[in-house]
């Protein structure tokens, strides 16, 4: 599946030809999905329904949920030195920061990060999710991961409260049976995200056993 990103930009050239670029603060993605008749399932029904209902529709890609659900740009800071996050060096977060995301209910989820020092019990990373709180005090340099299971779908708020020399980087929220081992998605996927499902195109493919079978193709656009 190809994901098209849509971030408006503009360009301005000075009288001597210097180029200055301004970019919109937000990027919005778009997915073109094809659902062949053979893959028809409950998901097909959900997509068809989402196209006509006036309600919040959340979209998630399983690989990105397993990668990093936090929004892009939230996982690292801007302060050198970089911290080795499972092979990926990332600049560290040294000032308190609050990051908002969204998690799914009943799914085993992990809050993970790397640090370059112990915090002595003062510096911490915490997650507030539907019906619970997870708080991690890193005791030494390295990788830290802590599981939690939200009671329902809802927002998650990650608070990074580093205290020098305890710096933090490679912040991740992931779904999966076990903790991640590496920082996979360099910039986080911001999943699940709110989307608009456009009315699917519908191709009648065959009649089988007295049922009509359709292929669908649908465009899903991130909104908000």
């Amino acid at each position, binding site marked *: 599946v190809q994901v098209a990103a849509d971030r*408006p930009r*503009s360009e301005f050239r000075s*009288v001597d030809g*210097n180029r200055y670029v*301004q970019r919109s603060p937000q990027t919005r993605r778009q997915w073109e999905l094809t659902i062949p008749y053979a893959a028809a399932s409950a998901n097909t029904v959900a997509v068809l329904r989402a196209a006509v209902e006036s309600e919040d529709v959340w979209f998630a890609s399983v690989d990105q949920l397993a990668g990093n659900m936090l929004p892009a740009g939230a996982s690292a800071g801007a302060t050198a030195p970089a911290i080795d996050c499972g092979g990926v060096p990332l600049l560290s977060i040294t000032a308190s920061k609050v990051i908002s995301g969204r998690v799914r209910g009943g799914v085993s989820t992990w809050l993970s990060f790397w640090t370059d020092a112990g915090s002595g019990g003062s510096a911490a990373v915490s997650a507030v999710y539907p019906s619970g709180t997870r708080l991690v005090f890193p005791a030494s340099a390295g990788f830290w991961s802590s599981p939690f299971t939200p009671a329902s779908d809802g927002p998650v708020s990650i608070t990074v409260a580093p205290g020098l020399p305890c710096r933090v980087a490679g912040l991740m929220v992931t779904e999966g049976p076990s903790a991640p081992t590496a920082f996979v998605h360099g910039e986080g996927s911001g999943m699940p995200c709110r989307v608009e499902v456009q009315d699917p195109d519908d191709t009648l493919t065959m009649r089988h056993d007295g049922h009509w079978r359709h292929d669908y193709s649908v465009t899903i656009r991130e909104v908000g």
Partner: protein
Amino acid sequence: MVVWAKTADSYVLPSIKLSVTGAGWLSGAAVGSWMVDRELVASTIPGNIRQRTGLSIGAASVTVRPAVRATPWSKTPATRVTDGLPATLYAEASDGTTKTLGAWVTDETDGSLSAEDVTVDLLEASFVGREMPQTLPPANWNRPFFPNRPVDPVWPVSRMLEKVGFPSVPIGREDAMLRVPMDGAIQASGDREWTAGGQIVGGWSLMPDGTLGGSSGSAILSVATGPPFAPGTMTWHIALNVVGTVYLVDDAQGWMVRVVNDQSTGTYNVAASNNAGVSWGTTRTFAGRQSADWPDRVQIELSRTLTSAGMSMSWTSTSARARSSAVSSWSSLSTHSSTLPLATPDSRIWVAGGYAVPGVPGIPGSPPAGRFSAFIMDIAQPSSDDLWAPRRAFLKPLGGDLGMPMVPPGLDAWGVIQDCASANLGGVVIDLDGMARVLTRDDLAGTGAAGAAVDVGSEWEDLAWTLDPEDTADRVEVSFTPPTITEADFGSSTLAPEVWSADGVIPLNAGETITIPVTFDSKAAIGVFSTFIVPVGTPSALWSQNSTICSYDNPDGAGVPLDASLVTASARQTSSTTAEITVANRTGAMAYLVDGNGDPCLILRARTVATYATRQIVERGAAADVAQRPLQVDLTPWVQSQAHASTIADYLWDRVSGGGLWKASSVRCRLDWSLDIGQVRSLAHSRSGLDAKALITKVHFDGSEVQIAQSLDLVLIPWTYSDFAATWPTQTYAQFATAQGTRTYADHEADPLWTGA
């Protein structure tokens, strides 16, 4: 404070948001497209010399898509669209930092049923709803005793800035018993129990921190204490700006406080005396200069104990402590005990800086002189918001002297501010941080240090210039109206000058009391009005020295006038150009204010009156009958002396006579948040040989989700001597002469900054 800076070459735009107080649907609403316009037009600035349009109101327009649909007919207050609400437009970067793009008030709002977008027009908050005619308090009111003490033209500007929410000193509590900027004017206090007059005995000047009214002499605050003192401990809270050593004295009640706030020696302390400075309590130190906004401000808590002994009462102790910010620690108490009999119930508080107050012992008459301003005194414990509120205005002397400042009838506060600044070739702008800043003619001429240089080639899209002959003149004619001061001389039979007289017969019902608001025509009264008398019997000097009232029981003036005790009148000065006359009819029948001929008879006279009647002209350049492009500027009443007018004329002539003043409009530039109106920047473009200074007269933003286009209007500023001096800062004339060896004057004129390099 937000750091306003040039943006990166590849810049992720901040989210632009709008918050409107009192409109829940517009709380942090994301803005789609927006426009902000701020312009400096009110000044006689080079390149705009004929555009004396007065007021520039910053304007903005934003299109928002609110989270909930809002309409003017909504039943829910939170989603009902109304106008005139305070609004904040701000930019929020991805890291959460915000920049305020000005304070606004909502104006016209447009929406429709078919679109969710709503367009909100905004007006600069500080200008809105201030279209009330203003007056100035009488300045220089003690003129008979201390003549010729004119004020700087920034004085009326300061007064009006205060009225539109940009005080240069904290406003203090509404009901504070005293709040005196000490800038040379009579100051009436809000609370009826207390009245105060600020009498500046010494010269006044500008404090180093930009507040007006620092006096190097002393001031009397005549405080009439309402209820008699009762036994017990009384506490007053006082705050004022102090530089050096200042004494606070109540010469009737005997308390005295000495405050030292001296940065040059690092001395910060306070001491109290219960017996008028004959002896003192222990001097207590405090941490000085703890407030960033008000480095010179000191807050004093003064307590006195009054003890009853038999039939008499005595002050038995005075304590004082001080601190230098809203949050810093108080000094220890300086307490002094003695027995001092309670004098009269009235107090006269003197504030003195190294000045021998007549009749008050204990104050050294020798330097170091202290200076002070911005006095606030209250009984209740004021909150830090009252005494330490962040400053909103930074003043600078505009240069020149106003003998008798007055406001022409009908002019509103911003009219005064802009007219006065403009007449003095300066300007007043609200900067990006919301501070009112006075720009002097030197600032606008770029004689100060220019801001960061602009590399035009790499940062500006183009520089479309205009050379407009309208910006030059071959004759400058400056007109002004000096006040003619008439003073009553009670030693002779000289008339007390008349300030107002009734032009119609005023009838009064039986037992009626009326108050007549009067506005003087081209006059300003200073000091006290003469009391009203009825001119009966043998004519005497008193007739012409006092205000006149005459009344009969008929409108024709037949019979004998009513006795002075039956129809009474009194007058109260409400400003330099207005008064209220209260007339009471104490008879049981109608009374008419007429003289024996049936003519109206109610005349108000004052001891000192300034009349603005004679317009004078200062001219430069060609004679009036041959001038082809004359420039006429009327500076009335913001310039009042020949010398002041000549200075303005010289300055103006220097600007407009040379020619070659080009200007540029709508110059698109690389987004730089730090560019603001009133700034002077050096421009350079090596390819075209551009090397100039320019004044930014307009900043325009046009924003959408895709871009924030910033454009500027500019006027070129000729190089001045200060630029030349800066180019040759350490060199001698001989070096200069050598370096310039073969050049002629014409070369210099074309390129005055050529350094021979």
